[in-house]
């Protein structure tokens, strides 16, 4: 284990610090360069590398005694020309990508100082490649070449450095560690000014890089399986494999290691290999080879064999082969320690396996892949797309090369359109953080500049709404083969059903299903659905208040889409456009839902919501989807003229709460505001009239319209914390919804109008506007006041006065709930109110402690509406929306 430099001499530390300082300064200066500046430097570097390709290859061969001169020269050319071809037009400074439709811009930020380890197998090509990437991305690099390839690497660095500086790169942009030790590497890997370690090399170097705690690109060994499937072009496959495995004597870690061959073609393939210069080992030779070129203790290849010629290896092992033998092919019968040649062999020795089926072949490839090759490279030769796809599915490799040579294919840019590289990311399987072919983008911090986006909004309402006295007569316009009226007993008794029937065309068969006047139960829904099936209904008329209309919505859903799972559809969501559970779109039956409301509050005739209970399981199911919205709404005041006073108040206050909450919701829009504001105005004007003079047709009509209009607003903007508090409180103490809303309403207005402890994210609004919206409402109602604060206070006061006039209980205490009882209930109340989805659109994000405070305010009741003097007029109409 390296000691992070603790054992280094002061002199050595000073030397290393000097390198880092130099690189840091170079990187700092480089940060000022433009794209044009770096591109002006890169091109001559590439040309210099091309010019010196053979020279550097020769140096590498002389020093390392590994590989093939000609191939190393080609590698140097690929590392310069092909890499340049990829990077030359790539923006790497400033804005590198733009997505105007998403409001996103990506910008490049250099890393600074990169500490780079380079391998013995591809020494100069790796240096050339990394130098070009570094300049293109404005980074400085300290190189630490493999000790046995130091001279050729330092020469490559020198050539690149001199060319770069000559064309404008800062001094010190590349340095090369002189005769280094593992302690030097450890010191630099842990240095605070080193931004990234790019370790291309053996497993030790990669592990050290990743263990340093620094961001690292560690690219290590592989073990490439090849599947030679029976449909493959065998002539091409055999040449490709030989080309690849003998390229630079097999030193590229992506080169083929074990070829799995289908039984049907096995003999033919071997014959072709032999014809083209491969030696097929017999059992004894295979055993001898495995014993010699693989270290029996570690199970890894012997270093002395790396990059040597096949004939030399054979001679060393004691095998007799033809002098020009290109490749030693060793048949194996399995993968693992008992089959030593099934591991990575960076020399021209290839294991082969005879598979009896596709299944067996794929399994052996998976075994090879898992024997040291995870995340690296795999190859398949086949013309069967299904097999190719299956191979891609089961093999874990960053590069899956199809019908081309593994090593040259993986390098990219020659046989395919992959990014040219000399560093193969191996993903987590190989202990890396990328499976990419390492490229310029890995040498950059990519910054994403995201502009505020205007969220898409919506405004959805039923197709048709008929309103005012006798609007029910519009039923004549809806032909039907079979109509089912769903209603409750009381409405039938007072003649509302008959009033409806009279308006249905006489030829239409009409049946009536009576359901209890309560929140619908699953059993009731099922019965209704059975009736719809029995009568083959194509039209449903829901005549009633919220409960009846909600029941009809759910019956329609189940009738049209029997597969709908109500419990699943009730899954919570934050944004209806991004919800996880989608409502069914396939329908086995089609029906028209006409909702005729008989109360002026819930507005269920136009909302996309439905609530039911499942008594058996003791749960409440709330469904929300625009597909639930009735097709037709009839808002005819004749059905509310006889509404009792209590119901008039409860539903009227519910309507007011809908409108007020929709008005300040974070989903409010000019579309919903127009409805919310109008509804508020109508309620303040006509609710007292409807309450005090129930037979006043004008008041009833306007309140009936107000309920529908408010519902249109909250169907699209949702409600808020008032509803969350009222739901929990009403459920716990059995208080009617409207009444529960009334108890909370003044307190919630005051709460939302004050500075929030926590703001609610609201991309469509500029700043916090709830108080301004309340002030706008106060203006609309003509309440007076000069400042926003005064106007809000006046709105609170007007709301309190309205509630007083309606004789609504004004405190929870007035309901006869003792303080002790309320205190005992408080933990559950606060929890349930917080769990309620209603507040998610509230302008102020409530803390649980604030919900508790609101409950206690409602318990105490009055005392909010003391106006304060502050006479400076303020405009409130501005800045409501982005």
């Amino acid at each position, binding site marked *: 284990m390296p000691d992070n430099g603790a054992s280094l001499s002061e002199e050595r530390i000073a030397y290393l610090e000097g390198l880092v300082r130099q690189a840091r*300064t170079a990187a*700092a*200066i480089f940060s*000022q360069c433009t794209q044009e500046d770096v591109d002006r430097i890169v091109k001559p570097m590439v040309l210099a590398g091309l010019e010196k390709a053979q020279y550097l290859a020769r140096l590498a061969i002389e020093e390392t005694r590994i590989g093939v001169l000609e191939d190393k020269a080609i590698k140097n050319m690929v590392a310069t020309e092909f890499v340049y071809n990829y990077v030359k037009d790539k923006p790497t400074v400033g804005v590198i990508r733009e997505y105007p439709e998403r409001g996103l811009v990506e910008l490049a930020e250099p890393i600074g100082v990169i500490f780079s380890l380079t391998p013995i197998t591809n020494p100069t090509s790796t240096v050339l490649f990394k130098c070009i990437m570094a300049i293109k991305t404005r980074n400085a690099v300290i190189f630490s070449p493999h000790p046995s390839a130091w001279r050729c690497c330092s020469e490559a660095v020198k050539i690149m450095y001199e060319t770069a500086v000559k064309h404008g790169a800062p001094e*010190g942009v590349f340095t090369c560690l002189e005769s280094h030790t593992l302690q030097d590497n450890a010191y630099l890997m842990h240095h605070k000014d080193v931004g990234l370690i790019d370790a291309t090399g053996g497993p030790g170097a990669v592990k050290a890089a990743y263990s340093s705690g620094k961001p690292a690109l560690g690219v290590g060994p592989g073990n490439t399986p090849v599947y030679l499937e029976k449909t493959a072009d065998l002539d091409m496959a055999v040449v490709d494999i030989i080309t690849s495995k003998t390229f630079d004597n097999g030193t590229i870690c992506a080169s083929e290691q074990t070829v799995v061959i289908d039984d049907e073609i096995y003999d033919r393939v071997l014959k072709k290999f032999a014809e083209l210069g491969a030696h097929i080992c017999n059992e004894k030779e295979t055993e001898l080879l495995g014993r010699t070129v693989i270290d029996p203790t570690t199970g890894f290849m012997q270093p002395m064999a790396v990059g040597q010629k096949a004939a030399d290896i054979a001679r060393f092992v004691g095998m007799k082969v033809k002098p020009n033998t290109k490749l030693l092919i060793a048949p194996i019968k399995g993968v693992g320690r008992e089959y030593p040649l099934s591991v990575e062999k960076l020399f021209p020795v290839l294991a082969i396996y005879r598979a009896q089926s596709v299944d067996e072949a794929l399994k052996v490839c998976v075994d090879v892949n898992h024997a040291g090759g995870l995340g690296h490279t795999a190859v398949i030769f086949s013309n069967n797309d299904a097999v190719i796809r299956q191979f891609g599915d089961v093999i874990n490799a960053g590069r899956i090369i199809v019908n081309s040579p593994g090593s040259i294919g993986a390098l990219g840019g020659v046989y395919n359109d992959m990014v040219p590289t000399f560093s193969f990311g191996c993903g987590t399987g190989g202990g890396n953080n990328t499976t990419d072919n390492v490229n310029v983008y890995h040498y950059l911090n990519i910054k994403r500049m995201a502009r505020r986006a205007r969220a898409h909004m919506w405004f959805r309402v039923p197709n048709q709404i008929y309103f005012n006295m006798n609007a029910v007569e519009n039923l004549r316009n809806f032909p039907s083969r079979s109509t089912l009226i769903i209603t409750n007993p009381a409405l039938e008794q007072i003649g509302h059903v008959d009033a409806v029937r009279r308006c249905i065309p006489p030829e239409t068969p009409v049946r009536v299903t009576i359901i209890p006047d309560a929140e619908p139960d699953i059993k009731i829904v099922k019965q209704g659905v059975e009736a719809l099936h029995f009568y083959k209904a194509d039209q449903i008329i829901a005549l009633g208040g919220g409960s009846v209309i909600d029941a009809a919505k759910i019956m329609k859903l189940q009738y049209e889409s029997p597969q709908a799972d109500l419990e699943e559809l009730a899954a919570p969501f934050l944004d209806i456009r991004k919800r996880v559970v989608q409502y069914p779109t396939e329908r086995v039956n089609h029906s028209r839902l006409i909702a005729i409301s008989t109360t002026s509050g819930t507005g269920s005739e136009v909302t996309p919501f439905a609530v039911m209970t499942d008594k058996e399981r003791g749960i409440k199911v709330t469904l929300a989807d625009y597909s639930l919205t009735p097709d037709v709404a009839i808002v005819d005041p004749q059905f509310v003229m006889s509404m009792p006073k209590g119901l008039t108040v409860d539903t009227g206050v519910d309507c007011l709460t809908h409108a007020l909450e929709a008005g300040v919701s974070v989903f409010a829009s000019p579309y919903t505001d127009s409805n919310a504001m109008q509804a508020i105005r109508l309620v303040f004007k006509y609710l007292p009239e409807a309450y005090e003079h129930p037979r006043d047709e004008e008041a009833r009509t306007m309140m009936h319209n107000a309920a529908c209009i408010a519902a249109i607003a909250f169907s699209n903007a949702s409600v808020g914390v008032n509803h969350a508090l009222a739901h929990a409180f009403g459920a716990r103490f059995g208080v009617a919804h409207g009444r529960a809303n009334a108890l909370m309403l003044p307190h919630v207005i005051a709460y939302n109008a004050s500075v929030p402890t926590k703001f609610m994210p609201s991309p469509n609004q500029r700043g916090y506007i709830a108080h301004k919206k309340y002030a706008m409402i106060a203006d609309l109602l003509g309440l007076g006041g000069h400042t926003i604060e005064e106007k809000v206070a006046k709105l609170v006061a007007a709301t309190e006065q309205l509630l007083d006039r309606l004789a609504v209980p004004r405190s929870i205490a007035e309901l006869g709930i003792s303080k002790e009882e309320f205190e005992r209930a408080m933990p559950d109340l606060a929890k349930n109110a917080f769990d309620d989805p209603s507040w998610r659109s509230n302008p102020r994000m409530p803390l649980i402690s604030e919900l508790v405070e609101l409950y206690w305010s409602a318990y105490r009741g009055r005392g909010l509406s003391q106006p304060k003097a502050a006479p400076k007029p303020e405009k409130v109409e501005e800045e409501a929306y982005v």
Partner: protein
Amino acid sequence: MTTAKTPTYLELKSDNVGRALDEAREKLEPGDELRVEFSRVTRIDPCVVRGLEALAQSAEEKAAKVTLRGVNVEVYKALKLARLASRFSFEG
């Protein structure tokens, strides 16, 4: 009792930055206050960085105060990356 010294001004032009910084460093006296006008310097190179390093070193040794004026943000960022920004005061 000490007397406050009058600040010395040094205006840098893009072609003389390294040399000017060296001269300024040589003239720096204990307790001096030097203001270096950078507004005409659009980019810095290793020579400038070395000059600033030496100037900072000298100022620290002589308890002198060096203020860089009118540094553009690209140069300022380069000074940050070179770990030099913390060794100077900045104005404008």
